[in-house]
């Protein structure tokens, strides 16, 4: 096992810069997820760690060694590709044993290692088949198995679950996490799916437009996002944003929206009076107000998901989502009042998007 250090790494294609000086430290045994919208540079960064893309600036270290100019085969890494990249003309056994065969290991050792990996992944009955005869989930497991037999120092995953159907994705997600807990191999995992990131990661790196927006443990990012992008990206349904102006008033504070609605917010000391801000409240933090208190809202759409009711309401001229565990009989057009705990409110500067 080894740590991975990314030091001010840049990537340009000609004059087009796609990664702008990224710094990430992946500790030994850690499971780090790179997450972001498509085109944010997360896959490029992973491919740079693998040695499949050249590095335009900065350094990448695996262990304590700079690997910038070391070819992929000498980096001692294993990678699981999005489309699995199984060799179609080889049996599952040969697919999994290919790396050992290239290293000229004895036949008995190859067999032992492949069978061991096959047992972990329940692939033993399929070893004689070719990749074309397996289902998507099985192929995915073979791709994992190919990485497992290697005892590589770092595992790299490039959106490995995105070709699976929703149900299988959840199953494999748990399997990969369980596998990591067992093997403790340093892993870098790329995905655009924030739920995958939240559920699997020891730490999440949120990327956007070739820059790192925030790095931290999943719940830290969820509870205190550094800016509007991270706040909006993590969480499903995503955080509600309402624009307004901050006004302090004794020990209390409100944000006044354009239509005059006053939203109670914490009296943070860093915000100035009349400063344009964005109020962020997660859907699950909205509650029904009692006895005429709270902020008025009009029910727009009701979406029961079974476990919850997702309610879309019109509040201060914006469409806002609220999630309730209890089964309230809401009707479209109904007038309700919503309230929230002040400590659950996030405030962001309107101009920079940074957390206040």
């Amino acid at each position, binding site marked *: 096992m080894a740590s991975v250090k990314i030091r001010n790494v840049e990537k340009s294609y000609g004059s087009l810069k796609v990664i702008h000086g990224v710094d990430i430290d992946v500790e030994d045994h850690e499971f780090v997820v790179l997450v972001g919208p498509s085109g944010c540079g997360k896959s490029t960064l992973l491919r740079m760690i693998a040695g499949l893309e050249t590095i335009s600036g900065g350094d990448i270290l695996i262990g304590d060694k700079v690997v910038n100019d070391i070819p992929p*085969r000498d980096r001692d890494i294993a990678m699981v590709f999005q*489309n699995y*990249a199984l060799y179609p003309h080889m049996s599952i056994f040969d697919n999994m044993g290919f*790396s050992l065969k290239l*290293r000229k290991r004895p036949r008995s050792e190859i067999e032992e290692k492949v069978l061991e990996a096959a047992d972990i992944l329940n692939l033993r009955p399929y070893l004689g088949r070719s990749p074309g005869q397996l289902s998507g989930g099985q192929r995915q497991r073979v791709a994992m198995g190919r990485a497992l037999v290697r005892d590589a120092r770092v595992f790299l995953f490039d959106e490995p679950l995105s070709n699976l159907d929703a149900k299988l994705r959840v199953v494999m997600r748990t399997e990969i996490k369980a596998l990591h807990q067992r093997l403790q191999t340093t892993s870098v995992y790329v995905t655009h799916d924030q739920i995958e990131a939240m559920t699997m990661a020891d730490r999440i790196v949120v990327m956007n437009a070739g820059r790192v927006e925030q790095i931290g443990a999943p719940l830290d990012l969820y509870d205190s996002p550094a800016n509007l992008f991270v706040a909006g990206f993590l969480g499903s349904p995503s955080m509600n944003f309402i624009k307004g102006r901050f006004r302090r008033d004794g020990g209390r504070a409100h944000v006044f929206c354009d239509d005059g609605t006053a939203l109670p917010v914490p009296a943070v000391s860093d915000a100035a009076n009349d400063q344009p801000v964005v109020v962020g409240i997660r859907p699950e933090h909205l509650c029904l107000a009692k006895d005429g208190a709270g902020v008025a809202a009009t029910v727009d759409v009701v979406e029961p998901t079974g476990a919850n009711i997702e309610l879309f309401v019109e509040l201060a001229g914006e469409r806002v989502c609220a999630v309730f565990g209890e089964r309230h009989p809401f009707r479209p057009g109904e007038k309700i009042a919503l309230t929230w705990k002040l400590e659950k409110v996030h405030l962001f500067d309107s101009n920079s998007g940074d957390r206040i």
Partner: protein
Amino acid sequence: MPTKLKKSLIYWAFLSPLVVIILFPFAVMFVTAVRPRDELFVYPPRWGFSEFRWGNFAEMWVKTNFGEALFNSLYVSVLSTVLALVLSIPAAYALSRYRFRGKGAYRTFLLMTQMMSPIVLVLGLFRLMVAFGMVDNLNSLVLTYAAFNMAFTIWMLQSYFSTIPRDLEEAAWIDGASHLNSLIRIFLPLAVPAMAVTAIFSFINGWNEFVLALTMIRSSDDFTLPVQIYSQVAGRYQVEWHHVMAGTVLATVPVAIVFSWLQKYLIRGMALGAVK
């Protein structure tokens, strides 16, 4: 009548004129090749004949030196195909995998060479071979056939190579393979269908080529099949048509059979890369 059968019959009715045009020369060739010599020119011409003479083939084989010409044709076709493939595979690989300056120009150049008829170039090629001292040498044909086929083979291989996912090679590199190793163990085995198709195409081109062979080869010992058969007709007082036709049957029918058997692969290969 079931609609499917009806459809088939209609299609065949439409196709039948084409079938007649394609098969007629073969029919004439065959009935001429197996009839006795004194029944060659009868009026009015007729399909039937009194005696089925397979012996014509044996006579022709000896008299026209067919075996040697067959060997020459095989030599030229096989070697030119191998040479074209050996040189095209790296070129096609580079075109499909790497970015380099002048890539677009190179591809256009390949296409342009296809627009020129070899007949236009035949005089220039002859002088080139004179300069190389290769006139009257089968290897001159190997070189020129390979060169003429390469534009097509590179183009064709490149479009197939582009359909082989890059991830497979990258996975092999990460598994510990060198570039060469991944090419040999992963890439080329997957490219076999395309290589087979281009090889067939190149072989048939070499097998059928006439003008260059007629120009470059002087001595009858080195004649390829088309030139050898032609020499049985051109500039003779008496043409032994039954031998000519027996030779033509032997030179075309085996290749025609192989070609029609392989044509589904050829068409599949040609359509490759058209739809991703």
